[in-house]
């Protein structure tokens, strides 16, 4: 037992000394007007149905992004979509926030594929590779938008709110 504790302590000190060791794995959380708030790791995301979309990034070149459709994540969290997206639920909006504090907004109707006919992807790969640091682990990809300002990099939280 003592040895185990010692190993544990050494590991902890090692983490602190190295400093750059990620003690808290990067996650994505979905909160607000949801039935079930979610905090997802990269593995949770990989366990969900995967979708690929092709889109042009700021570099003007087309890339293939892989990840989970935002609507699927919203369904998992119990967000009012599809038949429920009517009446006051049409006054809901979504704030996506990056690790650096950058925020962008979508209306909920924009994200619902039945409604808008578009697929917004929570991507974790680009051209088959994990998204690099500074961009990933998660990034929103909005394929049909001409300016990628809402392709929010290092996305950390998604909050669904009512406009009041």
């Amino acid at each position, binding site marked *: 037992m003592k040895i185990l504790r010692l190993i544990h302590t050494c590991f902890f000190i090692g983490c602190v000394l190295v*400093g750059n060791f*990620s003690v*808290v794995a990067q996650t994505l959380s979905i909160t607000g007007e949801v039935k079930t708030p979610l905090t997802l790791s990269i593995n949770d995301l990989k366990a969900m149905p995967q979708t690929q979309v092709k889109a042009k990034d700021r570099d003007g070149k087309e890339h293939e992004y892989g990840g989970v459709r935002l609507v699927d994540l919203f369904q998992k969290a119990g967000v009012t979509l599809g038949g429920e997206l009517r009446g006051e639920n049409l006054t809901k909006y979504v704030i996506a926030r990056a690790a*650096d*504090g950058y925020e962008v907004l979508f209306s909920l109707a924009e994200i619902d594929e039945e409604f808008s006919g578009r697929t917004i992807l929570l991507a974790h790969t680009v051209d088959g590779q994990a998204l690099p640091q500074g961009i990933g682990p998660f990034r929103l990809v909005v394929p049909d938008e001409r300016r990628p300002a809402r392709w929010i990099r290092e996305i950390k939280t998604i909050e669904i709110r009512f406009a009041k």
Partner: protein
Amino acid sequence: MKILRVIVSLLVFLGGLAALKAPHVAHLRPYSLVYPSSFGSRFTIPENNPLTEEGVALGRMLFYEPLLSKTNTVSCSSCHQQSLAFSDNRRLSIGVSGKPTRRNSMSLANLLWVKNLFWDGRVSGLEAQAAFPLTHPHEMGQSLEISAKKLSKTRLYPPLFKEVFGGATITGDQITQALSQFERTLISANSPYDRYLEGKYQLSATEKRGLELFMRGPAPERGVRGANCAHCHGGVKLFQEVFHNNGLDSIAVQDKGRQEITGEASDNGRFRVPTLRNIALTAPYMHDGRFATLEEVLDHYNERMFHPSNLSHELRTATNVEGGKTLGLTSAEKKDIIAFLHLLTDSTFITNPAFANPHPKNKPIR
């Protein structure tokens, strides 16, 4: 009759609620904030601390009040001097202990729009922010309770607090609330750049070139030169609430910045992107005041950055040379940008008598 009674009780109840929210303000004059419409209203003033003329005036007195420090020698204004856009000219500030604090004093312009304060964004709201420097052993070094007691013993303060907040005793929360009211009024919106945006200022040739470089991202493949400053420091307020690693160190060890708040390695060395308003007045620069001049800052971004793995994406990728690894501005271009940065100095902000020390010189009324 019953309905009438219900309505009456409802009204009484609502009235009671309103009184709970702000029991003290009924007789006070509301303070009107004046700012350009382009600045927008994306800010929140706590419901229990509405701005009043009387509250702002009290906050201003407290801002310049050395009794709030352990040694009775340091006030907020010691490290936040109006002539320097409410910053100081030291690398690291000096408080009651005589030992340098950990970080460079930040300018207090346009805090109304800032949600999370400090270089690392550790606290939300000015009321909560104020408690840090007041009580930190290297800053003002005195508990809010002792500050409240000391103020209670003066002739000056008890009637002022009573007028603004009601109640018989001065509390620590009232001190931070009044300070916050004053800080929310510190609006800087009258620099030559602001006047240029209104069509009332003519740019010189170098200022115009500087503005264009400041605003544009470089695209060497299209022959566009730029410094991309506005990507992070853009907008009319020259401020966005984001926290970036700007390549000051290969790894931040002494001061890990935002990582110390979030615990996430990817936040190592990330600090607030500060406003560039009055930037020519707020030297030295960076969270640790390591750069003495704007020239050194430009040199850093142009050719001296480290490239940690979490370096800000825009800093990593911006270059004026095809395939280049650095920003690649010429020395003439850097001079143009600095000429533009001087346009951000708001001389009316630093001389506004409404923000100056209200205490009579040499005759402190206690």
